[in-house]
């Protein structure tokens, strides 16, 4: 987009919605808190291999004598402090949480991105072409959405088996329909606007009209759904892993860490489940605070 635009008034008009959006977003302290929380959790999770005190999946670095130590204990041999305690296999809970968050975020981010691509393609095509294609696609979406997400995911996983890639596939199957329905709804309205008619009159190809004209104008609701869906994906993945049908033991997510500590919780060793649980809740709440406020800003009904 580096075409030399010399007329400044149009540039101003084009820039102002984004700037207004930034100003509006900053007004809400709760949403800003959510955003800061998201960043504070994401950075250490991504950087886990470099900043975690211990690699919790390197068996050699674990000292079995240090198992089930309460938070704040100091290791006998290596001298590192287990700030959040250790689990039954002497893993440092803090390190496990950092690695677990990494897995959780990876699964959620990948599945939401792919579902967004599939869902918005389906939704845009259904709205643009209409007719039998629209009817068929939306019937499939309706039927899928009438089944609870957890059941669809359980069926997918009991068919596919365990594994990180399988969890991602199951989450994509669960989520694409939400995107398809949302995008179709917006695109149906946008399709009859003048700019689309103008583009058609210029006999531009349908691919170009959909990608360059229709899609950018369907973005606001798409951003909202994608944000909130990120939290839903984290929650659903955690649930599946908690039930024991999600990620493999070698790459535990927060959900699996919680499940591992569950049996020790009743005997008072709360930290093995509790800290992964807190990390999970903070991530979900942070994303939801941001998403909820985005919905308020980007909803044209509220803007008026």
């Amino acid at each position, binding site marked *: 987009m580096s075409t030399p635009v010399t007329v400044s008034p149009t540039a101003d008009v084009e820039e102002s919605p984004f700037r207004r959006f930034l100003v509006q977003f900053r007004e809400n302290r*709760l949403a800003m808190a959510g955003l800061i929380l998201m960043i504070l959790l994401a950075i250490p999770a991504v950087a886990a291999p470099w900043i975690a005190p211990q690699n919790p999946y390197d068996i050699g670095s674990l000292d079995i004598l240090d198992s089930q130590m309460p938070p704040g204990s100091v290791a006998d041999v290596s001298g590192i402090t287990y700030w959040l305690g250790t689990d039954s296999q002497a893993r440092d809970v803090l390190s496990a949480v950092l690695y677990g968050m990494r897995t959780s975020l990876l699964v959620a981010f990948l599945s939401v991105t792919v579902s967004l691509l599939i869902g918005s393609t389906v939704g845009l095509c259904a709205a643009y072409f209409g007719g039998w294609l629209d009817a068929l696609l939306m019937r499939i979406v309706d*039927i899928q959405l*009438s*089944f*609870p997400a*957890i*059941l669809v995911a*359980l*069926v997918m*996983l*009991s*068919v596919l*088996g365990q594994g990180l890639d399988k969890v991602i596939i199951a989450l994509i199957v669960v989520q694409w329909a939400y995107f398809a329905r949302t995008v179709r709804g917006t695109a149906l309205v946008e399709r009859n606007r003048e700019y689309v008619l103008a583009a058609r009159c210029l006999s531009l190809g349908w691919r170009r009209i959909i990608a360059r004209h229709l899609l950018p104008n369907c973005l606001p609701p798409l951003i909202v759904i994608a944000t909130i869906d990120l*939290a*839903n994906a984290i*929650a*659903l993945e*955690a*649930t599946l892993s*908690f*039930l*024991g*049908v999600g990620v493999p033991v070698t790459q535990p997510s927060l*959900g699996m860490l*919680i499940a591992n500590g*569950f049996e020790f*919780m*009743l005997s*008072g060793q*709360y930290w093995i*489940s*509790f800290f992964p*649980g807190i990390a*999970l*809740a903070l991530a*979900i*709440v942070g994303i*939801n*605070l941001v998403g*909820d406020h985005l919905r308020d800003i980007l909803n044209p009904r509220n803007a008026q």
Partner: protein
Amino acid sequence: MRKKDRQVPVFIINRLFQAIGVILVMSVLVFVGLYLIGDPTSMLVSPEATEIERQALRKALGLDQSIWVQYLTFLGNAVHGDFGRSFLTGQPALQLIVERMPATVELVVVAMTFSVVVGVPLGILAGLRPKAPSSKAIMTGSILGFSLPNFWIGLMLIMLFAVYLGILPASARGETVNVGPVALSILTLDGWRHLALPALTLGLAKAALIIRVTRAATREVLPMDYIKFARAKGLRPSRILNVHLLKNILIPIVTVAGLEFGQAIAFAVVTESVFSWPGMGKLLIDSIITLDRPVVVAYLVMMVFFLVILNLVIDILYMAIDPSAREKVRD
């Protein structure tokens, strides 16, 4: 008018055929999908068993037939309520599920009742005064309620009430009383103590949703002329609330509560696993993990059947209560 009257039965018949189609398609998907996982005979025979013994077992279970023959046999039997026998216990799969059903239904009914009793008043409150701090607190709380995973809420409740305070049990069903063939927990004090945490776990998430629906409906109804008119007539605020408002927000609440009932039965899978509640959801998870195919297939087909019927009933009820929905069908 005549045309409109004819539209409704056509709609119902259409949906009925669609429902049967969905059930058939789902039964094929579930069956074919689950056919691909693992070889159940490897779990049933001892490792020392000879190949001949394995073959005999495969034959006894019908696993030596082609997949389509297996499916058609399965479908034919399913129509008669026969979903095969559990690979593990040898009991009929349907009987296993039906035995566990009362525990699940009891849990879900208590949870849904809780969510409506708590959710509707809070939702109306938040809708009447959207700017008040209390309303903002309610709405923020409801975000937490439906975005935090079910098992997490259960975990925290266990930590607080079972481990820290030590006043409520964290697992199993407690004392039950038999009413006919059905064992119920809600008739004993011990049963209620065991029911409290799982029902609260399941109910909190649903209450959060009911709050949001009620608030949205309240805000939509409040500016209507009939409310203004009732106010102008000088009716007491409590009467406006209980008669004019409540009657009109009832439709979306009933619709959502109905749909959520189906969701709650499905999400009971998670709650039951956390609390070792002996319902059919726990049975499903156990069966998935042990590859007990007949039980998984029977559960899923029954759930699909139940959800499709539930959706159909809600659609029809919705059309019966709300005339404007009937208009929409024609478009």
